[in-house]
Structures are given as C-alpha cells and as structure tokens.
C-alpha cells in the first residue's frame, strides 16, 4: 500500500445529451445552481456576466418559417481529455485533470482571477465571479453543505458535481468498498432533466448507457476538429443539429442570439 503506484481502475466520467429530447425548460440550469451554491444574479448581471455552469443555448438553422428549425443545446464544461486548453495555461495549478475520473477540476481558492483559462476555453464554459456572491436574507440557509461558495474575483465552472462525488466516495468508504474502484453517482443536471435527455456515466465502462450512446453514429462532440477530446457527447438524428458542432458560419452566426 505504501508504493506510489497503486492499481486504480480509472474512470472517464462523461455525458451524452440527447438534443432531440431537450425542450429547453432550464431545469438543469436551476438544479445545477442549487447543487453548486451558485448565487442569484446581481442586478447588473447579463447573459455575458452571469454564472451558469450549464447553459442551454437556443440554436436554429437560420432559415425562415416554414423551414425554420430550432433546438436547445445545453453547454457545460466539456471536460476535454486531450491537451485540455485551460489546464496548461493556468499559471498556478488551479486547474487540473483528475486522472482517476477524467474530470477537469478547478480550485477557486487557488485561482487569482487572471482569466487566462477563460480566454483559452473554446466552449465558453468558464465563468468569472464579477460580483461578491449575495443571497437574499435567509436564503443562505438553503445552501448545499457539500459545496463551498466562491468569492468574488475567481473563475468557476462545472466539475460534474464533485460534491455528490465526494458523498458517493464517503458512502463507499463507509461500506468498506476499496478506493480503487470508481463510484456511482449522478450529477444534478442529469438527475433533474425532466425529459431524461442527459445520461451520465463512466465512458470507460462499456456497459454504461453513456458509453454505449457515445459510440453511436448520431453522437457528436463540439468543435471536434480542435482535437480536445471532450467527454460531453451530444446526440441528434437531425443533420442540421449535428452541424452545430462545426466552426461558426459567418452570416448565420448573428441569428443565434438566444440562450
């Protein structure tokens, strides 16, 4: 046990999001904020200064009725598995990839707020605390003890609900399970989605629904050509939806201003 190379079966936690099922209700965004103690918006906040670890974008094919088609695309940290853009730019090791879970983690308490990682992220999945976090009087009682609130001036983002992951690990420890096996847990967004569009699981475990779906031809990942190997897979039977994974097409970019 003292040897530094303990045999751990590494997990690769990931998600598949069925875009065809997502009706853009926003339950995932709310559940995420509740789980992760993300404060309500400061009155000065906009869709560019807000904190939404997961954000549902309304996407359309740029056509006019009757050819107009619209879909909703939830975007959170894509947990890139290859040359994770945000990790190697952070000057003080506040961002890292957990080799045992593949989760890209971010430590707000280590962050000095230089925002270099935000510039580096192609998915705009990182959010900066422009204001001190503030909850209406009394509402701080509803904070989740599993996650610590962040302070002003630091970057934060989705970490696949590590609070729940900790709880699951603690339960496993209490039940006497070894710490070499990945634990089963469910992030808030996947649990909350009323249409069951989000499936979470260990992509290394070929038996998991996520792994199966990720392998299907209708699955795709955002900006795949950047070769960042995200662990968030999207699925759609619609051709035009699968095309949103590609680079922006000038001219149509303007219309997609919702979300």
């Amino acid at each position, binding site marked *: 046990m003292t040897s530094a190379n303990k045999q751990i079966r590494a997990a690769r936690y990931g998600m598949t999001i069925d875009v065809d099922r997502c009706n853009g209700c926003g339950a995932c965004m709310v559940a995420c904020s509740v789980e992760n103690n993300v404060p309500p918006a400061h009155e000065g906040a906009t869709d560019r200064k807000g904190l939404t670890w997961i954000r549902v974008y309304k996407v359309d094919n740029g056509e006019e009725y009757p050819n107009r088609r619209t879909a909703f695309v939830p975007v959170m940290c894509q947990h890139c598995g290859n040359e994770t853009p945000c990790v190697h730019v952070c000057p003080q090791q506040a961002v890292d990839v957990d080799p045992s879970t593949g989760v890209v983690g971010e430590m707000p308490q280590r962050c000095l707020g230089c925002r*270099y990682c935000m510039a580096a992220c192609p*998915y705009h999945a990182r959010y900066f605390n422009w204001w001190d976090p503030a909850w209406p009087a009394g509402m701080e009682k509803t904070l989740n003890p599993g996650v610590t609130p962040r302070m002003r001036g630091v970057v934060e983002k989705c970490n696949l609900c590590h609070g729940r992951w900790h709880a699951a690990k603690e339960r496993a420890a209490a039940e006497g399970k070894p710490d070499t096996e990945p634990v089963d847990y469910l992030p808030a967004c996947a649990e909350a989605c009323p249409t069951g569009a989000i499936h979470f699981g260990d992509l290394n475990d070929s038996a998991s629904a996520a792994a199966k779906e990720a392998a299907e031809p209708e699955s795709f990942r955002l900006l795949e050509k*950047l070769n960042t190997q995200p662990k968030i897979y999207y699925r759609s039977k619609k051709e035009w939806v699968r095309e949103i994974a590609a680079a922006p097409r000038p001219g149509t970019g303007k219309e997609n201003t919702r979300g």
Partner: protein
Amino acid sequence: MASQSMDRQFITRGLTRCSGSKFLWWISPWIALLLFGLYAAALCLIKGLNQTNMDNRFAFGLWIFLDLTVIALGAGAFFTGFLLYILKLDELRSVINSAVVIGLVCYSGAMCVLAVDVGQPLRAWFTFWYPNVHSMLTEVTFCISCYLTVLAIEYVPIVLRNRKLRQVPSFLVFEFELHKLIYVLAGVGTFLSFFHQGSLGGLYGVLRGRPFAFREGLAVWPSTFFLFILSAAAVGPSFILLTTWLVEKLSHKRLVRPEVLQLLGRISGSLLAVYVLAKSIDTLVWINRTSPETGFQAWQYYSWKPFGSWILVAEIGLFGLVPALILLAPKLRRRTGWLVSGAVLACLGVALNRFVLTVQTLALPTLSFDRFLSYTPSWQETGTFLAVVAYGVLVYSFSFRYFQLFPQERELKIAAPQMEEERELVGRS
C-alpha cells in the same frame, strides 16, 4: 526661496533646467491625471472587476492589450543595452540612460495595471509559490518581475550620479561597484526580456482553443513567441527615438547628435523589415495549414465586421513594410520629419498587432451558435491606464530634471550657445 536653491542643488552641474515653478506647472496636470487614475483603480480593487466592461467572453480587455503594447515599446531598454554593452555599439551610450528610465516606467506601469486586472491580487504570489511551468503566463510573470528588478538596479547608478547624492562617498563607491556589474546586468536583462517578450507572444499562440490566435512553432514555443521578440526589438529603438525627439522638442534643447537618432532609426528599420518578412510567412502558414486543420477557414475570421481583412493588410503593410522602408532609406532618415513619422508608424504597427492578438481573438466566436461580440472599456478601465501614462511622464520628467539622462547634452549645449531663452519652455538659473 530656500526650496528653490535646494531644488537647484540637485540639478546636474552645467545643465540648465527650467525654474521650479515652471516645472510645477508642467507636472501638476499629470499629477491630477494620476490621482484620477488612482481613484479609478481603487474602485476596481475595492468594488471588484464589475467596475470594468469586461465579461465572461471578453475576459481580457483594454488593460492586457495596452500592457502588451507598453511592454513591447519598453523593449528599447533591453535592446539598446544589448547593442551597447554586448554588441559594443558605443554611439548608443548617449541614450542608454533615457532608455533605462523608459523601460523602468513601462514595465513597472504594466505590472501595476496587471495587479488591478487580476480578481484576487492578494493571491498573486501563488504564481511564484505554486508555479505551473507549462503556463506561458508563469514565464511572463517570472521574467517580467525579474527584469523589473534588473531595471531598478540599472536605474540606481543614474540616481546616485545625481549631483547632490554623489556627495555621500559611500553612494559613490556603491555606484562605481554597481557600474562594473552593468555588463552582467545588461546580459541578464537581455536574456530575461528576450524570453518574456516571447512568452507574451506565446500567451496567445498556445491557445489551441482559439484557432485565430493559435500558431505552430518550435518545441513548446509557438511562432508568435519569436515574432513578439522580433517586433519588440524592432520598435524598441523607434520608441527611444520618438521619446528623445519629443523631449528635445518640449525642452527646446539638443540632447543627442542627430546621427544617434538616425542610427536608432536604421536599427529599427532593418529589424522591422526582417519582422515583416517573418510575419508574412507565418501568416501564410497559418492561413493555409494551422487554421484549416482546426476546422476553421481563415477567411471566416475576416468576414465578421468591422474586423475585415483590411486589418491584416494594415498590420503588415501600412504599419510594417512602409515604416521599414522609410527607416531603411538613408535619404529619408536624414529628414527628421520622415524619421519620426517612420518611428510613429512602427510603434502603431506593434500596437495594432497586439490589439489583433488580444481583442480580435476574443471577439471572434468559436461555437457555431455563438455570436461576434464587441466591447468598450469603462471609464474605470481607461482611467486606470491613464494613471500609468501620467506616472510614466512624471517619473521621466523628474529623472530628466535631476539626473543626467543624455550625457551628450552638456557638450551639445556648449556647442550651441544660449538659444533664445525667453521663448524657451525651460528657463535658465
């Protein structure tokens, strides 16, 4: 009156400087500007960065852009030092002091702005304690802070050679000892600044998530790393030239021989020419290989107005090739007007290049359902930066008044007998 004479005792023997009151008139507006800027900066520090117009998409704004520019312009300090002490280009001795002051001003100013720019300044030292060696920003932080120290040390002898201070024997000794070190310092300084100018370029070149800025390169260093070194080295002398010329105009004095300025121009011009060539090659590689490989067609970037392809032409042609040619042509160089405008264009060119790399990169969308964004700095952002400008002017004015920035000034003064003094901004004692 006493203060008057006191003030006099500090001014280098044999040099004429304007009366204390006149000097006061000159600095007071800058002090006002400085105070205003400090207020703006305080707002950002106390109330937080919500005072700025930056946002999650425009994570970097005016500050980073101008920091990069200022540091590029300040490169004159290290490059002149390099030419003088390492390459033994002795003509440059007459501007080296001025160059050091400019360098000090630019770097320290940039550092101050960066301290405001980060969300948690109290933790800035984490970078030194838990450095991530893979991060370009770590390189930048280390090199800049080290080089700033070097500049400070290089500044000390200039201060100690002050007429009053040198009365303290120990100071004189210290200064002498320090001067022996100058070659070492110049060497270290050169290395450091070559490196961080590079890492500043690398800062954006490594962003594989931002295909507009991403560049291939040697080992861990993207091409922008080397382009930044080159461009900084190229405009550094131009900026020295510019400032010297400006000071001459403002003080109605001849401070250096015209040949020196021309030499600076020539150095700048030739380096600029090399830079333009390298930049063009890099751009071609990027358009035809790097960018397409990441799924982005380069022409797309320039179809988002207002950043059309004109910006590329302006950067390489108007502000790159043109000044290079001007500064390389001996005929034009000899005409101050051409010389100066050449230098101005060169400086603008590097500014534009830094702008493109910082602001345009962030404005361009990466996701197909994302939009092109614009951003205008808030008055707090602008104010904070103006404080740095004011700070620079003040430090330089004081240094110019009390220290000997231009060794040739005295001999030139003797050569050119008392000019018409009443029109002079600078009166005689």
